């Protein structure tokens, strides 16, 4: 199995740092953090992580599912873990348009995150 790595797509700086620290704690390197959709796509394609932490609401035009779908078309093997503040049916339906590996609801449980990375 290849070494795990992560790109964090999150527009909230505090939460991005939190996720970064958690990854560090679990020994998974973070290859980059992006707050805006198009930058996130570029970054993921450049770094090719094994996992992506994907927020739903991002800066700019694109939302998390737009980014996720774009990534899936090029690199379906990248596992996308959605981390969202909303677990309403509308949001779930939107996420299910993509191919989510996991969906975690904020505030997340660190052990769920560890399990998703395992």
């Amino acid at each position, binding site marked *: 199995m290849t070494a795990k790595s992560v790109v964090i797509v999150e527009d909230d700086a*505090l939460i991005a*740092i939190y996720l970064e620290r958690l990854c560090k704690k679990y020994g998974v390197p973070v290859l980059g953090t992006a707050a805006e959709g198009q930058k996130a796509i570029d970054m993921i394609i450049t770094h090719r992580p094994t996992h992506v932490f994907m927020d739903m609401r991002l800066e700019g035009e694109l939302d998390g599912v737009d980014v996720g779908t774009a990534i899936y078309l090029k690199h379906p093997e990248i596992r996308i873990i959605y981390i969202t503040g*909303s677990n*309403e049916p509308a949001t779930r339906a939107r996420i299910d348009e993509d191919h989510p590996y996991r969906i975690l609801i904020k*505030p997340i*449980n660190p052990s769920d995150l560890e399990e998703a990375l395992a």
Partner: protein
Amino acid sequence: MNAGEGRALLKQFADVGRQLTPPLARASTSQRLSSAFAFSAALLCFVILLQWIFAFGDEASLRRVSGMVPSTAILMILVACGLILSKYSNNGLSNRARWLAVGLVLAGALIDQELLFLGGGTGLDRLLIPGFSSSVSSRMSTMTALCLILSSTALALVNTERRRQSQIFVVTASLGLLLSGIGLIGHLFDSESLYRVFVFRAMSLPTSFGFLLLFLAFLISRPDIGWVSIIAGEGPGSRSARRLSLVMLGAPLALTYAGFTVEKYGGIDINFLLSMLAILMSFVLFSGLLLLADRDNAGSQQQSVLIASLERTVADRDLLLSEVYHRVKNNLQQINALLFIQAQSSDHDGTKDALMRMSGRIESLGVVQRLLLEAPARNRLDIATFLTELGERLEAALSGTPSDFKISHDLEPQEVELDAAITLGLIVNELVANSAKYAFGASSPGSSVSNVISIRLIHEDDDTILLVEDNGVGLPHDQEEAMPTGGAGSTIVRALTQQLKGRLEIRSEHGLCTSIRFPNDVLRGQSA
């Protein structure tokens, strides 16, 4: 929101509107109108009765008195007085008087008809008044007797609140109105032809008019039932009915009367006249129909505009609500992130520990938020689901700090109010965190299998008991009081227990056992 719900909402608005209209204001107008009609009918009869009295004894004058016989006049006055009385007083005495009037009128009409058919053509008047004229027109007509019977029936039922009786009242009064209407119009057109119909024979113009007033008075006196309720209603349909009724009722009459006059003087063929009348009537009715249809269309269009705007409002609210929930969860996540970052950058173990316990508390609140959006009702939660998920989270977060442990659950589903659920969650969070920290010591890895913290809820009739137990070392012997006052965990548990009107008990036998007894009505949010 779909259209059906929108309509239900509109109906609710309409009902509220109806309740807001003072019933007295509506009632008194119709009662006054009804009494005025009844009084006019009585006055008419009274004038005719006076004529009879002044003409009495003079055969020539008697013949000139207009049609209504004294018996009819007296009985009709009885009905009218009974109606007015029933509207202005509703005690036992007035009820007895009303029933007396009903009985007298019924008996009078029946006896008169019996005398007429079986007694060789003598009516009530000729029996009671010696020397009363024996001409045909000076007797009570069969139709008059029928109208008296109908009106006494209506008088008997005028104040009823029962459904079936109300229906009979409306049918009776409406039939009376129709029959007296035929009599009246018959007189306006051609009295001779009216009298050629047996049952109407000898039903005079004043009698017809008097009954018309009387039956109108009956119907108007109950604007809450029957078709009168449609005319008297507040709705847009009732308004157009009121506006159209004069035309719709008057036009056929006017047309027919015009036809009748033309036929009498102009010599137009009767069949052609009938066909003309037929087409003109159809035209009038069809115009009325189209007018109503147009109003109906406008009304329903207005309704759909209203429903659409309500739907937009509801959608906006939904969006706002989900936005608020989203913000709450995001804020909890931000607070947690802050605590985590601060804890990581702290060198002091005590500080780190305190911050991580804080973070645990925030996560417990987060679990409630998460479950809340999945719950069917947003103000209640199943406490079993909640505490199970919380327990799993606590086990994952706290096991291994310092020693491993398992959490066991014994929870039955119970719906509790949201605030109570949050409070219970925070209490469980503190108790489990406390056990995790102190119960098992720094154990060797092998012993971790037997380390258990159990969360149980016991349901009794009036109370629910929360039990959080561990199989650890229990209280140290030198510590008298479990959870000494002053510690953050202790303060939180005691305060939250008090908030839910619970009673806290701590035992230390084979470990620490905390039991809190909560009244069920507090958990269900029924005692605010």
